[in-house]
């Protein structure tokens, strides 16, 4: 009988994995919802430190009535030269629900960061990170075989010494060890108090607006991951997977061991 402490082969998720998974899920869904609301208020993305309605955008997203609203009075130049920066009075009544949107975003971010740190520390010290998540010494051949298997919709139970397949391990590692750190750090880079204390954040992300743009694309990739994750959970046995991640039931493949 496989118990939850066994090093490999067990399909049963540890209690701390199950709890951090669902608390993290709830916080992530709140962050996506409020993040989208915040994006709706100013649906323009820029590169560098500065970006506003009076400067060119890198990307404009048609996600709210604020999209290309153009509700400004005459532009007034600050300086005499013809390329002078300008000022203009906004007359358009914009969509803005950031009062609750921002506060809920940051509250959810606290929950996700605390849960994520707890998960990371537990994963490192229990060996979960090393045994179950890191892809280890993958060869390009085994990796592409795994990709091919996914493409022909034959999802294999690979002998990786983990409950996860090779492509699955790689994806989880990229999400947990790259995308989450990037989205947290770019989020912090948008904070005036934090960048005053930690000015290197503005350097590594090329400025506040670059950090905001990277934050958006990291969020996009995380939502894409969520969708693929849910599809894979359904295709590999929804009931079995949900039982393993909730009440921690042993799965039929556990019983055989």
């Amino acid at each position, binding site marked *: 009988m496989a118990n939850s402490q066994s090093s490999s082969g067990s399909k049963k998720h540890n209690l701390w994995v199950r709890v951090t998974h669902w608390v993290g899920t709830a916080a992530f869904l709140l962050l996506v919802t409020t993040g989208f609301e*915040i*994006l709706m*208020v*100013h649906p*323009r993305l820029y590169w560098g*430190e*500065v*970006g*506003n*309605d*009076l*400067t060119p955008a890198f990307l404009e997203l048609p996600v709210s009535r604020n999209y290309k609203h153009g509700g*400004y009075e005459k532009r*007034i130049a*600050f*300086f005499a030269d013809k390329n002078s*920066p*300008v*000022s*203009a*009075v*906004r007359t358009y009544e*914009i969509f*803005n629900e*950031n*009062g*609750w949107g*921002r*506060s*809920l975003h*940051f*509250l959810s971010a*606290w929950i996700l960061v605390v849960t994520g740190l707890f998960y990371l520390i537990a994963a490192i010290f229990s060996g979960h990170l090393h045994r179950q998540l890191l892809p280890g010494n993958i060869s390009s051949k085994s990796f592409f075989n795994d990709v091919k298997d996914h493409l022909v919709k034959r999802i294999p139970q690979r002998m990786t010494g983990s409950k996860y397949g090779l492509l699955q391990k790689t994806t989880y590692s990229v999400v947990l060890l790259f995308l989450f750190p990037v989205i947290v750090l770019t989020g*912090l880079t*948008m*904070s*005036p*108090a*934090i*960048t*005053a*204390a930690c*000015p290197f954040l*503005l350097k590594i992300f090329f400025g*506040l*607006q670059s950090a*905001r743009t990277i934050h958006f694309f990291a969020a996009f990739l995380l939502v894409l991951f969520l969708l693929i994750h849910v599809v894979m959970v359904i295709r590999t046995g929804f009931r079995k997977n949900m039982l393993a991640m909730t009440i921690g039931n042993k799965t039929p493949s556990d019983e055989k061991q």
Partner: protein
Amino acid sequence: MKNNKYLITRRTAIATGLSSLGAMILYGCTRPTSPPTYGNILRMGDAFTYNAHRSLFSGRALAKEYSRRDISSFPATGTTNPGDSSRAGFSELYAQLQKKDFADWKLSVEGKVNNPGSYSLNDLYKFPSRTQITRHTCEEGWTAIAEWTGVPLGNVLRHAGIHTNARFVNFYAYDGWIDSIDMLDTFHPQTILAYGMNGKNLPLQHGAPLRARIETQIGYKSMKYLQKIVVTDEFFDTGDSGWAWYVGM
């Protein structure tokens, strides 16, 4: 007593630990360091962020300053003319001052100070000035860089004889806004009362004749059209506006 061979039993250690933790929480209750949370979970999150920022960072670090080349275009949002009766934030008083180009304008400084009084623009010009090129970060998501010239708020309040038990500085604006900051932000070297923008007098749409610049917080704390400053030793509660009081993020 069966366990008298131990000076401190596990049970007493736990009890002592819990009661001292309780004392720390109670101490926190008697000396509020944050505004009321109104039982609102969002305001509790804001308070947590505020306390985390104040515990983790010194609060004395300067926000990044830029070069003149970096000065950018700058939208004017919120109230843009309190002298215009057809717009939001209209003030009869402001309209009168505006007619005489703010010659009669005075900033009132009141509350927990030894010498309450008012400062005309000429009075403020006599203080050593500070010029800084900083980034305005709006809660909406946009940013803009401008050069601001003004007098450090801390210097004005020292001149007025601010009390040592002062805890908050409350700003009152002609357009009806009231907001406050703590002492750390008040005496931050980049917290200035700005009368100049990009080398000229502060334009009407950006808060003429005087606005606050609080560079370690989001744009809406840098109030425009200042009328009055009141120093208090406790938080002056204007009710839950639906917006976070501390916006260092």
